[in-house]
C-alpha cells in the first residue's frame, strides 16, 4: 500500500493550536498525517523532542508558533526560530533531510493556512519516502546518551 508519512506537530497553545481548532470548526479538510502535540510556546520545543520524534518513527516534524511579534511570551518564537536553524544543521549532520523539519507561523485565524501546510508537508514527505534512520539514532526510546547538546544563543 502507499506510504503514509507520519508527522509530529508541536503547536503553540496560543496561536497555532487555536488556528488548528479553527480549521476544525470551519471544517477545512486536510491530510490526516499530522499528530499534534500541544506546547505552551514554540519556544518550549526542546531539540531533543524533535530528535526523539524522528528516533521513534516520525517521518517529519512541524513546529508551529505565533507570527513574529505576536508571541504570547514576547519572544519565544524567536528562540524557536534560532533553535530551528541550529537543529536543521544538526539533522543534516545526522543524515536527515532538512525538509523533514518545518517551522511555520500560524495565527489563531489561519485555519485555512494550517490545513494547507499539513497537506503540502505530507505531499513533500511522500515524495521523500520513509525516514531512513542513521544507525546511531536507532536506539531504544529515551534520550540518547550522547544526545547533541545544542548551545543556546543568548538574546541580544
Amino acid at each position, binding site marked *: *500500500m502507499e506510504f*503514509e508519512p*507520519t508527522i*509530529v506537530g508541536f503547536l503553540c497553545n496560543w496561536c497555532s*493550536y*487555536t488556528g*488548528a*481548532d479553527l*480549521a*476544525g*470548526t470551519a*471544517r*477545512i*479538510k*486536510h491530510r*490526516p498525517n499530522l*499528530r*499534534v*502535540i*500541544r*506546547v*505552551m*510556546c514554540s*519556544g*518550549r*520545543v*526542546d*531539540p*531533543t*523532542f524533535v530528535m*526523539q*520524534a524522528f528516533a*521513534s*518513527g*516520525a517521518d517529519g516534524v512541524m513546529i508551529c508558533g505565533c507570527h513574529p511579534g505576536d508571541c*504570547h*511570551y*514576547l*519572544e*519565544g518564537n524567536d*528562540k524557536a526560530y534560532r*533553535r530551528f536553524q541550529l537543529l536543521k544543521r544538526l539533522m543534516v549532520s545526522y543524515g536527515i533531510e532538512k525538509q523533514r523539519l518545518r517551522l511555520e507561523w500560524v495565527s489563531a485565524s489561519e485555519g485555512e493556512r494550517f*490545513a494547507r501546510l499539513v497537506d503540502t508537508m505530507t505531499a513533500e514527505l511522500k515524495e521523500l519516502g520513509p525516514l531512513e534512520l542513521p544507525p546511531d539514532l536507532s536506539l531504544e*526510546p*529515551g*534520550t540518547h546518551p550522547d544526545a547533541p*547538546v*545544542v*548551545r*543556546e544563543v*543568548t*538574546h*541580544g
Partner: protein
Amino acid sequence: MNDECRIGVYICNCGTNIAKVVNAERVCHRVADLPEVACARTYKYMCSNPGQDMITQDIKEHGLDRVVVAACSPRMHEPTFRKALEAAGLNPFMLEMANIREQCSWVHDDPAKATAKAADLTHAAVRRVARHQPLEKQEAPYTPATMVLGGGIAGLTVAVELADAGQHVHLIEQEGRLGGNVGRVDLTAPYLDSARDLLAEKIVQAETNPRIDVHLRSTLTDLQGFVGNFTGTVTHQDGSDTEFPVGSVVVCTGYHEFDATRVERLGYGKHLDVITSFELEQRLRSGRLETADGRVPRYVSIVHCVGSRNVKYHTYCSRVCCMTALKYGHEIKSALPEAMVTDLYVDMLSFGKGGEDLYRRTSELKTMFLMYEKEDYPVVRAAEAGDDCGLLVQVRERLSGETIDVPADLVVLMVGMQARADSDQVARTVGISQDVEGWFIESHPKLAPVSTPTEGVFIAGCCQSPKDIPDTVAQARAAAAMVLGYIAQGKVEVDARYAQIDGDLCSGCRVCNELCPYTAIAYDPDEGRSDVQSALCKACGTCVAACPSGAIAARHFTDEQILEQIEGVLAWSSSQP
C-alpha cells in the same frame, strides 16, 4: 512506565460529530488493552451532565487516579472535565484531553485514517497522563500598599483612586511640588476648563488624604521582590533611604518638553519673541501677553509639530499639540481682540471629543491656517525695517503652493513631548523596557495597555507615550483597576504550571537568565546556580528547552510528559489498523 496508575479513558461521540468519521468503539477497544488503563468507555456526549457523572462514578468505583477524555478541543472543555475530576476528589491536573473532533473527525474524511489518528492521539494522552503529577495552585500574599512614581496628573489620579477605595499609597515625586506638567497649564482644550482647578482638586485630595503618603524630592532607587511582595527603596533629598513594602508599583513619570533650540530654522533662543507653548501659557496666565520689549503683539504665529513627526528629532506625533494650538487661537483672540493669529500646521489632529468643533470655532475666529510639509519647518527671521511686525515666518504653504511670509510679533512653538532624560534609570530600577524613543513599553497595546512584562509593575500616562489629560486619567484609573484587582483577591495566584530548577543539576551557566522574558530567573552567585522566581514565571518553557544540563522542569509540560506523548502518537502509527 508507571504501572501503578489506574487510568480511565472516555471517548466522546459528540453525537455524530466524532462518531460519523471516527470509529469510537474501535479506539476504545485499542486503548482498553493498554496495561495502565483501568477502564475505557464511549459515550454520546461526555460534556453533558450524565457524561460527567459517568466519570466521577468510575473514579469512585474503579479508584481511578488519572483520566483521559478524547473529545473536542481542550480549549473548549478542559475546565469542564477538570471540575468533574475535582468533584470526584481528584487533582484536576490528573486529566489529559485528546482532541479528536476539531483536529480529527471534523477535518478528515477517511474513517480508517481518522480512526487510526484518533487512536494515536488517545494513546498519547494515556502515555502522557501516566506521567502527570498532582499540582497545587500556588499562592503568595499580596501587600495592599501601592507605590506611585510621579506626582503629575496621572500619579495623583492613581493615588486618589486607590485611597478612595481605602488603600494605602506612597506617592513619590522628584520635584518639590505635586502637579507635574499640567501645573504649567492654565486652561485645558477643548472646553477651556481651568487646569489649575482640576489639579488643585487632586492635589488637595492627595495631600489631605491620610492614606496617601506624599514623598516630595524623593526617588525610587531600588526595587526587589515580585508582585504583591515588592520592597521599594526610596532615597530622599537629604540622602536618607526608606524602604516600603508594596504590592504593586505604578510608574507615572510623565514627559519632558522638546528642546526647541535644536531646530535652528525656528530661531528659538535667537529671536526673543520666539517662545515655547509653555512660555505662552505663563504669559497668558500672568495676563501679560506681550513681546520681549513690552509691546502688545499685533500678529501672533503658532507653529505646530516642533520636534514631533520628524525623523531628525522624534518620529511620533505628540498628540496634544494641535488641540492646544487651537486653544491658544481662542485665548490669544480673547486677550488681544485686535491681534491676527496665524497657525502653521502639518495635519490638524483635532480628533478627540469636541476637537473638530474646536477646530471649526477657531477657524471662525479668522485664525489663518497655513499647512507646511512635514519636516519642512518654516524659517523665522527678523522683519525688515518699516514692516508692521517684528518677525517674518517664511513657510512653503502646501494648500496654495506658494512660499509665504507670515507677519508675526510673537511666534509660539508647539514643542512636542519626549521621554524624560532619567526614564532609562527608572526602567532599570523597576525592570521594565523602553522603546527606541525612550517611552516605556506596555505588555500589549490592546490586551494590557498599562501592564508590563514585570507583573505588579504598571505604567500610566505620558511615560508610556504622549497623550492628553482624559486619556492619561483613563490610563491612570486602568492602572488603579489592576492594583485593586490584586487587592480584592488579597493574594497573588501563581500558575501551577511554572518552571523549576533542580539545584543539583544546574551548572550555573546562566543561559536561562538571559532567555527569560519575565526576568523570573535569577543567578545566585553564592550557590553558583540559578533559581526560578515561581511567581514571575509564566510557564512558557523557553528556559526548559534551552537548559543544556536539563536541570529545568516545566511543571505539567515536563520533558517526560512530552516525550511520552511523542512516543504515544508514534507507537501505533507504523502499524496501520
